[in-house]
């Protein structure tokens, strides 16, 4: 809403009993056009034959009244008042010789047309509202029986996979007696790439651990993954790309992309 208008008189406004026809309650209106429409209805004539001049006068009286009562008026109402005051003066003055501007008559007609259009859409809105609403007047099945999706799993495996698995298994089993497992390490570069990729999709705090689970192919890799990811995270924090948080010792580590960094990329 617009700021209260400056008033010169400090005296409290009183509702004049002598003006019963006009109730000043701007809250009930959906803007100046709505107010004009209501005033037009009081002319009790067809909107096609409405006197825009009379309407403009009534509107200005209304606004005056509202100001006198120190009602807060939105800027829209005041703009309309100014425009109507202008229109009124044009309508009262003799029409100047054909200028570039539209004539006062044309302006009045355009306003009448706008009022009729608002009235028409309002009528349509009313009809729409009076239709049977789903969930109010008519109802769908209360206990729908959803379609059960039976998943028929079809397993895929090639002979190549089969032989590879067999050969690998047999060889590993026998070799394991003599050789050590090769230590797999998750490199810092891998961790950084993964984090940057993942963090790109996020806007809120996420625990580091949830990221990492995806990479936990083998339990043995857990320490290296954790260590590399944490150091990568810290580096990204240093670069201002991430915020990191840990609520207490041994609690999950939360990360969140820095908003500016994300927006800059958008």
């Amino acid at each position: 809403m617009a700021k209260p208008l400056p008033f010169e008189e400090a005296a409290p406004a009183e509702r004049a009993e002598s003006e019963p026809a006009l109730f000043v309650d701007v809250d009930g209106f959906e803007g100046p056009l709505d107010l004009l429409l209501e005033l037009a209805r009081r002319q009790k004539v067809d909107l096609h034959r409405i006197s825009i001049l009379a309407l403009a006068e009534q509107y200005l009286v209304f606004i005056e009244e509202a100001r006198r009562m120190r009602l807060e008026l939105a800027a829209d109402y005041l703009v309309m008042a100014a425009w109507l005051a202008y229109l009124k003066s044009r309508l009262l003055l003799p029409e100047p010789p054909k200028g570039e501007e539209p004539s006062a008559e044309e302006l009045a007609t355009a306003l009448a047309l706008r009022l009729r259009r608002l009235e028409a859409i309002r009528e349509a809105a009313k009809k729409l509202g009076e239709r049977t609403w789903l969930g109010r007047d008519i109802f769908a099945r209360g206990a729908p029986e959803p379609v059960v999706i039976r998943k028929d799993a079809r397993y895929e495996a090639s002979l190549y996979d089969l032989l590879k698995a067999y050969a690998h298994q047999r060889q590993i089993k026998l070799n394991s007696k003599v050789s050590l497992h090769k230590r797999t390490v998750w490199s810092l570069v891998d961790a950084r790439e993964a984090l940057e990729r993942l963090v790109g999709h996020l806007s809120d705090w996420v625990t580091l651990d949830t990221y990492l689970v995806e990479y936990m192919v083998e339990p043995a890799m857990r320490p290296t993954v954790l260590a590399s990811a944490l150091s990568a995270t810290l580096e990204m924090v240093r670069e201002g790309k991430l915020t990191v948080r840990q609520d207490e010792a041994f609690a999950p580590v939360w990360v969140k992309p820095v908003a500016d960094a994300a927006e800059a990329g958008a």
Partner: protein
Amino acid sequence: MEEAVDMTETAENSRIPDHGEAMRIAEALLFASAEPLGAEELAGRLPEGADVEKILEDLTGLYAPRGVNLVRVAGKWAFRTASDLSFVLARDVVEQRKLSRAAMETLAIIAYHQPVTRAEIEEIRGVATSKGTLDLLLETSWIRLRGRRKVPGRPVTYGTTPQFLEHFGLDAIEDLPGLEELKGAGFLEGRVPSDLSVPVPSDDDALRPDEDPLDHDDLFQPLEMDQSGTGEE
């Protein structure tokens, strides 16, 4: 269902023994679903050769006098309680959120004038539209962002959704009440005379020539700033 195996026989009319069975299946599918089902969707689930149109016609007739009717909504089919029984059922409604007059009017303008921009809505109503109204309507999923108008500032265009049709029990957007009157009075014409303006609402997914698709991130970011700051509602 043994007869269903015989596929050489195509159901041309209801005399085919499968028709009754196909009707039962269609009934079960439509009854079970809370969402309307399309004729093609149904056809895919019915025995081969079933005459979907005939089945739907027969079911509509069969249920017309009953407490539950088969109706067409948003181009699809659904069972709904008979509208004349709302007085008994309305008691079940748990305080439905009422739309404010501003929201209802905005919805109507979007429905009748779609695709329409926020500025156009405001022009018709003669008042700023608070962001809350559009948000609320988007939340009901009755309106959607369609695209962006090809004018300076590329404002977002709004339109209605199939859920809108479903909610108000409309088969198509052309069934909007009072549409003919509005059209006849010329109120659906564009404000600015333009070759591009088509004086009928369209909720077609296809964008109008004066619409651009939404930007990739429109759905994830604030769409427009609330430039007025003096929302009326």
